[in-house]
């Protein structure tokens, strides 16, 4: 069965590039670029893995992560968080909120693909 990744990211060209890589590897990719109603997408899509940016319009990635972990169902979905390089305080805060893995920008396409596949394997 095809697995689903939800990409919550507001940079359109990152969405295009990452979607291309993941779809080519057999993933079903859903995207959402507005932080304000990102939880609606999480509830609707019920993804196998979430890739979540820290800085989003409307609501921060940290707040969305906190809501994901507070859900009754699906609260343990693996979350790969994308942070800016050098922001160690971002990493500490993400860990405290229950992030599964984080990756700093700029990242390599292969690294994202491998991380998503590994996280999906953990969930299974």
């Amino acid at each position, binding site marked *: 069965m095809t697995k689903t990744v939800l990409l919550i990211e507001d940079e359109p060209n990152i969405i*295009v*590039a990452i979607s*291309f890589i993941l779809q080519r590897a057999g993933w079903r990719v859903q995207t959402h670029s507005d932080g304000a109603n990102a939880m609606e997408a999480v509830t609707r899509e019920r993804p196998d893995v979430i890739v979540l940016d820290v800085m989003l319009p409307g609501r921060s990635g940290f707040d969305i992560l906190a809501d994901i972990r507070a859900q009754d169902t699906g609260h343990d979905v693996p979350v790969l968080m994308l942070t800016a390089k050098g922001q160690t305080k971002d990493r500490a805060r993400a860990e405290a909120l229950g992030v599964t893995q984080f990756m700093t920008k700029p990242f390599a396409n292969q690294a994202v693909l491998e991380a998503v596949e590994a996280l999906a394997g953990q969930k299974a």
Partner: protein
Amino acid sequence: MPRSELTGTRIRERRLALRMRQADLARAAGISASYLNLIEHNKRRIAGKLLADIATHLEVDYTELMRGADQALLETVSAAGAATGLNEDALTQAEGLIRGFPSWAGLIANQAEQIAALERSVDALNDRLTHDPALAEAMHEVLSTVSAVRSTASILASTPEIDPNWLGRFHTNLDEDSRRLADGAEAMVSYFETQARRGPGFLAPTEVASAFLDSAQHHFPKLETGSEADVEALCAEGPEDANARTMVRTALLQYLHDTRQLPMQILRDAILDIGVDPLVLAEELGVPLDCLMRRLAALPPDAPETSDIGLLVIDSAGAARYRRPISGFALPLVTAGCPLWPLYQSLARPHYPVQSRLTLPDGAVFDATAIALPAKRPRPGTPDVLHATMLIQRMPAKSLPATRPLAVGVTCRVCARTNCTARREPSLLTPVPDHPKADTAF
């Protein structure tokens, strides 16, 4: 050569204690009164025969005049050694290093100060990324664009047989992102170039504003009889950074307001009559104590009391709002001071002045007067915002009783005092006990 930062001050103290006129001492030492004035205000170094001659005329051993400088150098060299992990045995060699190799000791001290300045710059930059949302967002924008370019280019490079629709789309994206990246990089370079023009490292607006006020020696003749237009004119000559300029404007508007409450000539006449005790002056002149203290800190540079006065104003959070430095008593701008200072004690009892005679670890004695007052008229339902003002004076105030001075420090990190109940962090200068007592942190 050991730094003589405090030597001039000690010469002046001794001369005043002997009630000797500056011109008389200068004549006896064979120098001009104006040159002696520069020495006394630590604007000229002094050593060798001239120092020995002056010491003779002041009826004191010349080592007494140098003692303060040696102590300051010893503390700086010791702190530098402690920061690099030297053990206690090595630290005891610092005094011998200063005596035997004063030039090398001075070099160590200078380099330690440069390192500290660089560390403050790094901290300020890290702090700026954390607390400057505009800069953090700009950095995120640049890194996101770089990520998009990298991902897109990687796809094109690794996918020789790519669908033409995708190919066209990726080329368009690369073109867009390249332009955004160029614009973003230019904006960042411009931002950092502006920061560099303001001074060494990446200074916080507080430091930039303070540097401007220091350069004017905290006295603004145009504002003594001026208006708000003069404030704006001074701001136009001030820092380029908008935040620092706002801080300067706030300080100068307060200065202007103070001149109208207490004209400088009235203050100077009162000082001649009754001295420089701020409590006595405020009572006699009928002005609020904080205003009086700010006016004392605004005395003209040529006033005899000027080099003996320092001022620090903080808000309820302990953040510095205004600082006039004084030689021999380090008043912090971005770090916290000693919790025992009257400045912090006054916050616990707003409206009540706190006055104490303080002694620093090197034995220097200062008088401190502080008061915390509301920054604005209190309104029901809103928290009080207090500003605490502390005046530091080198000359003793007459109204203080001859009691034992309160032993204080400058800041815990470099304070050698032991068994201090107010200590908040270990000192670089003393070893941390293996098992601290439960009721004391260090």
